């Protein structure tokens, strides 16, 4: 049990890291998107490893199947050539700031995890789908609904931006 899990972890980790570097480092935007897809798939693999197949499949269904396809659509409309202005290598200060920004979430989360380590299970617990739904709709109904409000606001914002453009 132990060794395959570690091997799988290493594989997903590799997929995520390589995907990340491809996503931020490629000159071609479509290749960067492929890197993003790889990262999302690696994260889905991590969910599988945590014994949360529902999360893993949802991750693939929503992020890979829908969001990445929509990003691709936007790229296609924008004519994303590999030799555009943005494709030049970034100046060193900007790279430094980028790395700093990327490390910020880790720096914020690591102390919390180190101070309050969660109980580690040898085998991750199996959560039935019905339980997940019940918890979402009963205990966590407020955060769940707030997320939908955030999505609604962002959609309304997107529509608003487009309308303003059209007036000009």
């Amino acid at each position, binding site marked *: 049990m132990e060794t395959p899990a570690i091997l799988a972890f290493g594989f997903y980790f590799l997929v995520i890291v390589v995907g990340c570097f491809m996503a931020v480092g490629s000159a071609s935007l479509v290749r960067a998107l492929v890197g993003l897809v790889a990262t999302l798939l690696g994260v889905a693999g991590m969910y599988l490893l945590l014994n949360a197949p529902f999360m893993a499949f949802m991750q693939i269904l929503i992020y890979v*199947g829908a969001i990445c*396809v929509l990003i691709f*659509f936007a790229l296609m409309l924008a004519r994303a050539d590999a030799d555009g202005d943005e494709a030049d290598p970034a100046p060193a200060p900007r790279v430094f700031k980028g790395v700093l920004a990327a490390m910020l979430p880790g720096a914020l989360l690591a102390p919390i995890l180190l101070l309050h380590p969660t109980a580690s299970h040898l085998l991750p617990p199996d959560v039935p789908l019905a339980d997940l739904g019940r918890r979402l709709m009963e205990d966590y109904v407020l955060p769940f609904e707030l997320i939908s409000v955030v999505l609604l606001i962002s959609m309304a914002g997107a529509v608003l931006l487009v309308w303003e453009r059209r007036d000009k």
Partner: protein
Amino acid sequence: MNATISFDSVLHVVLALVGVAVFVGLNGLLLVYAERKVAGFIQRRPGPYEVGPQGILQAVADALKLIGKQLVRPDRADPLLFWMAPVLAFFPVLLLFLPLPFSPLLTGWDVNLGLLLILAFAGFNVLALLLAGWGSNNKYGLLGAARAVAQSVAYEIPLLLAVLAIAFQEGTLSLSSIVATQGSMPWQWNIAVQPLAFLIFLISALGETNRAPFDLPEAESELTAGFHTEYSGMGFGMFFLAEYANMIVACSVCTVLFLGGWKGPFLDGAWWFLAKVYALLLAMMWFRWTFPRVRFDQLLNLNWRWLLPLGVLNLLATAFVMKL
């Protein structure tokens, strides 16, 4: 799903995948031949006739030709994306066959989220079309890819709504339990309770698998071959196999959700499942040679004005009845 990754279960899945690959390959040959014969008969001509008796070896000859042909990449096409696309189109499709219950005993991997697994990995097909269209540095390819996005994003929604209606009704996402709750007689199948969902599912499945009359991404009369214009040999062959494999999956899911899966009036078993799947496949071929290709605005209007509202209403009605 079980958390333990034992050697046996891995071996089981690997064997199932090999079996699925053989099944897909043989069915590719069979369906190409069937499609050309059906097309021939509908258009009052014999179809393939020369290679073997009744042209039965035509598909084998075509397959050998495809395997033998040189793989050509257009100048200035992105090599990574160009070669990744056919692989990405074909291999995820094999996974889709794993949770399908061919018979009570014959299931590759009886996972309790089978329906979700199929829906999730089916999304890779669109991604592959996009990469192919973009990566081949060809205007027809790009136009085909642009159409593929709009179409598949649109048709995925009514498809999910129709599937969700059945999932609501059955309270499970496991394909084998969905079959188990249906009776043996045709009026005990889900199609009798959910005829509207069946219709929506069938139309959206045609849209999702890019089959005529919704084959706009490859529209040969306008776009040469759309997203796969630049592919030769097995590059094209893999897209082709993936398309047929996707058709089989769509028909199988339809059979499981609405037509009682492997159950029949007598002698339950895999033959009922296969008979229903092939009947649906035949209907899909029949549609292709009967209806003309729709225009793009017709395609999207049908989806957003009819299928989507009807799907939502059907889902609400299902939820209402379930609550009573």
